[in-house]
């Protein structure tokens, strides 16, 4: 495969550009469903695009005493990681033969980098509120990562493979009881990974005025917003791929439609959780993840070992 084609894949389809556009459309779905839940009309279809483009024309304020390089580059790490994770998942859908063994582990690592970039950016900005947001983000990362990896382990045990393609070809994990428990755990962890209510303590507009993002303005803030939208697209796609066989592109139109519906259904579940749950304090969130959620994930792993 030649280099130009590879670069095209990374930057356009199914990499950066595709993920960005799909992510912004997903964030419109999120805002529209939220509006309908609150009996409102909601924003127009292009609103997320306007929001990001507007930030691109605004001034970038760099507060005094900031670690300039880190402050400005942190958003880019997150965006690159989200785009790469999406690229790996979509390549497993589209060109199944060419994925490598262990890509699930690479994707798991890539999906943590957006959170790390938020932490770095918030600490670099030297703002007390941003530091609080960053430290909360860090605690949340430590809290949800363990149950999330345990939940991902369940389909891996079912299929005896750490290659995403093998998981797509095998029977979906949710057909077994252990898979159902693991799927529920993974959905809860996804909510925290996206820092949506009830796990939005890191940015808590009402108490931390935007938390980790408080000092960001203009294009860097736009990149952060774009990264959030891209994660809102990538995370549900990853879970659909791991637990429900993803989207099959080689069997005609109906399975594609079914796959997209699975994905949209999962997004709506995320949005409904975010609209019906109150925010947890950070200590409550950590206790919740290290207590009941990890326990449930462990039960699922043991059940998967026993073949249930």
């Amino acid at each position, binding site marked *: 495969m030649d280099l130009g084609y590879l670069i095209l894949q990374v930057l356009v389809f199914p990499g950066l550009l595709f993920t960005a556009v799909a992510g912004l459309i997903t964030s419109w779905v999120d*805002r529209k469903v939220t509006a309908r839940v609150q009996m409102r009309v909601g924003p127009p279809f292009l609103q997320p695009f306007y929001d990001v483009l507007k930030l691109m024309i*605004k001034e970038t304020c760099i507060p005094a005493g900031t670690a300039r390089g880190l402050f400005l580059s942190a958003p880019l790490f997150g965006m690159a990681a989200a785009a790469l994770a999406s690229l790996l998942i979509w390549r497993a859908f589209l060109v199944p033969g060419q994925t490598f063994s262990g890509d699930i582990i690479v994707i798991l690592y890539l999906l943590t980098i957006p959170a790390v970039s938020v932490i770095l950016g918030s600490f670099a900005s030297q703002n007390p509120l941003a530091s609080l947001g960053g430290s909360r983000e860090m605690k949340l990362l430590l809290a949800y990562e363990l149950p999330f990896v345990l939940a991902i382990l369940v389909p891996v045990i079912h299929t005896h493979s750490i290659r995403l393609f093998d998981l797509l070809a095998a029977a979906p994990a949710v057909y077994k009881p252990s898979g159902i428990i693991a799927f529920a755990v993974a959905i809860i962890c996804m909510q925290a990974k996206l820092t949506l209510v009830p796990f939005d303590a890191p940015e808590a507009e009402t108490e931390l005025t935007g938390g980790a993002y408080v000092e960001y303005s*203009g294009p860097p803030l736009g990149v952060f917003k774009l990264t959030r939208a891209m994660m809102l697209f990538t995370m549900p796609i990853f879970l659909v791929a791991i637990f429900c066989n993803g989207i099959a592109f080689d069997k005609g139109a109906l399975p594609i439609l079914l796959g997209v519906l699975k994905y949209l259904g999962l997004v709506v579940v995320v949005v409904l959780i975010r609209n019906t749950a109150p925010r947890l304090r950070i200590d409550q969130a950590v206790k919740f993840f290290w207590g009941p959620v990890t326990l449930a994930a462990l039960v699922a792993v043991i059940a998967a070992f026993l073949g249930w």
Partner: protein
Amino acid sequence: MSFAVNMLTRSLNVFHLGGSACNNCDIEIIDTLTPRYDLERFGITLVGSVRHADVLLVTGVFNKKSAIRLKRVYQEAAKPVVVIAIGACACTGNMFQKSYNWDVPVDKYIPVDAYLPGCPPKPEAMIMAVVKLVKKLRGAK
């Protein structure tokens, strides 16, 4: 109409800067942002940090001490930013004009793009102010 103005007027993030008034204007601003009026239809959302703001909604009376903060908050906002003085207090000083804790109207400290009198102005009036401001920014008559 340039691309920048088009994007700015389609996605206005408002920041609420309350200047120790009777608090009624602040309550009306919150009312305007409720689902009943659904300002997200026009891309208007409330933000918590002044760095994210495109519109500053200034209410109340500023004295010599709080005016220093007013100027600082205005400087901290990422440009371009527009300012709306909400309520008779921010526009003129209202009934606090003869009071010891009033100095000069808001527009003597920072540039104001739109004045919205009323004590307090109704949510409908605030939406009208935003519509007029958007028209002004886009250069329409």
